[in-house]
């Protein structure tokens, strides 16, 4: 799941065209990254409105700073770092984790449509349950399917730190899953 999410042009070609003032290339870049940036922002802020604002601001920054993007790292990592910086600047206190990971969040027909509100609730739940580092690692690895090594590259951490955070995050999430499962509690 790493790499540029566009199926068409290569990322650096899009970046180069955007630098040259091609607004259509920039729109293509936004189309490719907007959902991902929004989810990152949502996970980091825990608030839908703020996530929308942060997403918008991220692309303003991307447009302004694209000339300074050297291309020696991945575009994913560069955009993630911008998102993270802006999200932490905008972040309000997160809701308490009291009612987090209730069954309601997970009672979803896998074959059916998962509605937006449940998605928001889930991400807010994760945001309120895990510390920042563990949350980032959990989202990048377990929800987006990246390897710990990729996540380490994006987060600017060592591979071993990412793995340690991932183990802690999984333990927290799974303990909560199991604690809220009625049949497990009966055993």
């Amino acid at each position, binding site marked *: 799941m790493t790499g540029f999410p566009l199926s068409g042009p290569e990322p650096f070609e899009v970046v180069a065209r955007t630098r040259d003032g091609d607004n259509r290339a920039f729109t293509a*870049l936004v189309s490719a990254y907007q959902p991902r940036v929004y989810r990152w922002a949502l996970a980091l802020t825990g608030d839908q409105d703020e996530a929308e604002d942060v997403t918008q601001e991220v692309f*303003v920054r991307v447009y302004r700073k694209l000339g300074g993007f050297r291309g020696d790292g991945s575009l994913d990592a560069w955009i993630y770092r911008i998102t993270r910086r802006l999200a932490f600047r905008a972040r309000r206190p997160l809701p308490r984790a009291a009612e987090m990971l209730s069954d309601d969040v997970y009672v979803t027909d896998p074959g059916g449509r998962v509605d937006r509100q449940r998605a928001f609730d889930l*991400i807010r739940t994760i945001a309120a349950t895990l510390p920042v580092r563990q949350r980032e690692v959990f989202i990048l690895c377990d929800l987006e399917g990246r390897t710990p090594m990729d996540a380490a590259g994006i987060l600017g951490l060592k591979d071993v730190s990412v793995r340690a955070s991932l183990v802690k995050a999984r333990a927290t999430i799974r303990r909560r899953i199991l604690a809220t499962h009625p*049949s497990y509690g009966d055993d």
Partner: protein
Amino acid sequence: MTCDDYLSMLETLPVQELAYGEAREHAAYCADCNRVTRVVAARERNMTLAYESAYPSASAVTVAERAIVKARRQRIAFFFRAALGLAAVVVIGLFVVSRRIPVNGPVPAMFSQRFNLQCLSPEQASELLRQEIPDRNVVIRDRPPLAVIEVGGSDEQIRIARSIIDRFDNSGVAKCAARVIVPKTVRAVKVGG
């Protein structure tokens, strides 16, 4: 493998990794662990689906257009701020420089002269001169008990001081034997005689 071993693996490993080796064998005959594994797998699958279904409300085209407009405005605002900052630096610089250059031109040369008094006491002469020449730059030093007064000031001020001393300390006008009354103002002075 015991149930505790299995559950501790389930706590931290990806569920897919439990589908191999001893863990798989344990789950095959332990109904409880099997069920728990299914619960975790189903909920994590749902989490992933829910996460992937979170979409922003604004369209990419709108976000891109707004980003371009806002970025351009910010660039213009940056240049304005830079220009304002530069102007402020220039104004402050000019202010500082102007404070260091004297505005009123060169300071007039200062002179000093000593007058020997014949009738007036140094205190009387000093008081008289201070009334007539109120300029603070004028330095008047009396040195009692010597009958001498020293005046420092511009050429013009020295000249005025000299004329006052000549006028009120002239033995022809004010006999030394007579009592000298120093007036409140010089114009009201009446020298006894």
